[in-house]
């Protein structure tokens, strides 16, 4: 693989991108209730809406209010648009299994009419939510009073036509479909197909294909459950449909492999069309090798020619035409390699970081510890480490690049590996589909940053 040595650039990736604080959502207090832990962040296809899901099963949707776009330094603010309880805790009495209400993933459907639709999922059940606006209400019913009470029909002497009068905007969320009982194991991914009719849901061992209109059946398209569970060696960690080819999807595994499948080949896609795997030097193998090679996220590029995977220490870019190695590898926090023992003991080694592409696939982003997040500019071969913190939250304050000192002499402004706060993890980040606006989730806060010259 081409191991790119990137030079840290003080001006950020691309040289001309300067990230500034825009907004932060959430409580300031350090005492975080478990329900407030953010578990997913997703922009819709236009970037106008930004959805978050949390451990308490709630979804909050923010809408971009565009202030004066003609101004050279216009600021677009995201304000609360809608919030609702998507999932509730359940108990499966038959299996003695507690089902968390935590929202694992949210995926938006492309907009077809006035309403917005999104899919949200917990470990077992996927729901299709319709978010619609109401800005008019009817007035002047013949049989009802304004407060809803029915009139005495004998008092009605004339007929009138009710009229629609404007009212304050009300945003309503209603569950339109509930896709349940199709997953024995825990759902880790959902992905809407480019055909806008179907979507896939993946759990640890199986992937199912659904039609958005049909809730009482789904097709199983991948099943890696062994006949004897003692022989289990790997699980599915993430899955995604190709952005343009509706017959193609990929799924990643806990062993660091990615399989590309073609649904035209057969009904059950157990045989992959392509297997992406980087050969490993067997002499380098250690107790930790498999754990840190487990892929926590896989994302196709917008142009559909590449895919990105995130494992514990790195981000890899794969060319779909080359299976034997990634074309680019970026080290997220290589200094953690000499801390793997403690990271295994405190379970941090199992943290599942996500990754994302910018709109034109030139920059990729992922999170790290200490509320740091990293951006890699593929074209300019530059990377930067930034921090999401309340201390750097003055309006339009430019974010200063951070540097971690792996060992030896620590320079001023650098932070040593041992001082990193491993409880402050940035697992979820999202990039606006067109503009340089990013949403970064810390444990319970959502930060929105913008490029100064947007």
């Amino acid at each position, binding site marked *: 693989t081409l191991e790119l040595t990137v030079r840290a650039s003080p001006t950020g990736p691309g040289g001309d991108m300067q990230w500034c604080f825009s907004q932060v959502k*959430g409580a300031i207090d350090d005492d975080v209730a478990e329900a407030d832990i953010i578990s997913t962040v997703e922009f819709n296809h236009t970037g106008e809406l930004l959805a978050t899901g949390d451990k308490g099963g709630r979804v909050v949707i923010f809408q971009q209010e565009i202030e004066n776009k003609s101004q050279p330094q216009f600021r677009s603010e995201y304000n*609360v648009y809608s919030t609702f309880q998507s999932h509730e805790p359940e108990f499966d009495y038959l299996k003695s299994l507690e089902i968390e209400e935590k929202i694992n993933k949210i995926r938006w459907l492309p907009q077809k009419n006035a309403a917005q639709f999104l899919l949200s999922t917990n470990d077992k059940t996927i729901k299709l939510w319709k978010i619609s606006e109401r800005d008019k209400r009817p007035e002047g019913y013949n049989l009802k009073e304004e407060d809803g009470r029915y009139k005495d029909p004998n008092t009605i002497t004339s007929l009138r036509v009710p009229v629609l009068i404007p009212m304050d905007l009300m945003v309503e969320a209603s569950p339109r479909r509930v896709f349940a009982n199709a997953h024995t194991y825990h759902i880790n991914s959902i992905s809407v197909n480019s055909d806008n009719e179907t979507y896939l849901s993946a759990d640890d061992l199986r992937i199912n294909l659904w039609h958005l209109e049909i809730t009482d059946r789904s097709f199983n398209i991948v099943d890696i459950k062994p006949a004897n569970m003692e022989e*289990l060696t790997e699980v599915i960690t993430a899955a995604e449909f190709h952005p343009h080819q509706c017959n193609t999807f990929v799924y990643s595994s806990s062993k660091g492999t990615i399989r590309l499948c073609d649904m035209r080949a057969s009904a059950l896609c157990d045989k992959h069309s392509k297997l992406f795997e980087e050969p490993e030097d067997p002499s380098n193998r250690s*107790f930790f090798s*498999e*754990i840190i090679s487990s892929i926590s996220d896989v994302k196709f590029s917008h142009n559909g020619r590449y895919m990105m995977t995130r494992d514990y220490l790195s981000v890899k870019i794969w060319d779909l035409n080359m299976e034997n190695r990634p074309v680019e590898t970026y080290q997220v926090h290589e200094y953690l390699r000499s*801390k793997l023992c403690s990271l295994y003991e405190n379970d941090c080694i199992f943290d599942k970081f996500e990754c994302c592409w910018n709109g034109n696939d030139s920059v990729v982003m992922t999170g790290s510890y200490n509320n740091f997040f990293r951006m890699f500019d593929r074209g300019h071969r530059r990377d930067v480490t930034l921090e999401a913190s309340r201390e750097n939250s003055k309006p339009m304050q430019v974010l200063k690049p951070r540097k971690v000192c792996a060992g030896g002499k620590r320079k001023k402004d650098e932070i040593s590996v041992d001082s990193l706060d491993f409880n402050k993890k940035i697992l979820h980040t999202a990039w606006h589909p067109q503009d340089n606006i990013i949403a970064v989730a810390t444990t319970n806060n959502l930060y929105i940053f913008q490029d100064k010259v947007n």
Partner: protein
Amino acid sequence: MSGDNEDTQTADETTLDEKAPEVQDKVISPEKAEEAKLKARYPNLGNKPGGSDLLRKRLQKGQKYFDSGDYNMAKAKIKNKQLPTAAPEKTEITGDHIPTPQDLPQRKPSLVASKLAG
């Protein structure tokens, strides 16, 4: 590398078992050093970490072992005495311990709105 292969090895191949122990220390990668640390702390750790045990623990997430039949029968037998209480590590309890309703955390839906919307 077994002894059988030694005569077929080329001069280019490194044979770790031929190096002196002091030189070998310098060649150990940080990852292997961490592995040695872990094995020193947990000598009984299995050799296949990515295998069945770890994966099965992952698949069992959410499993709770409360059987009302067991619980009531145990209560009837023991009568006035206390039931054995749960160990602090409550994740995978089976066998001797009989969970009580108090062991299982209350699961109530969030009635409060998200603070992100505040």
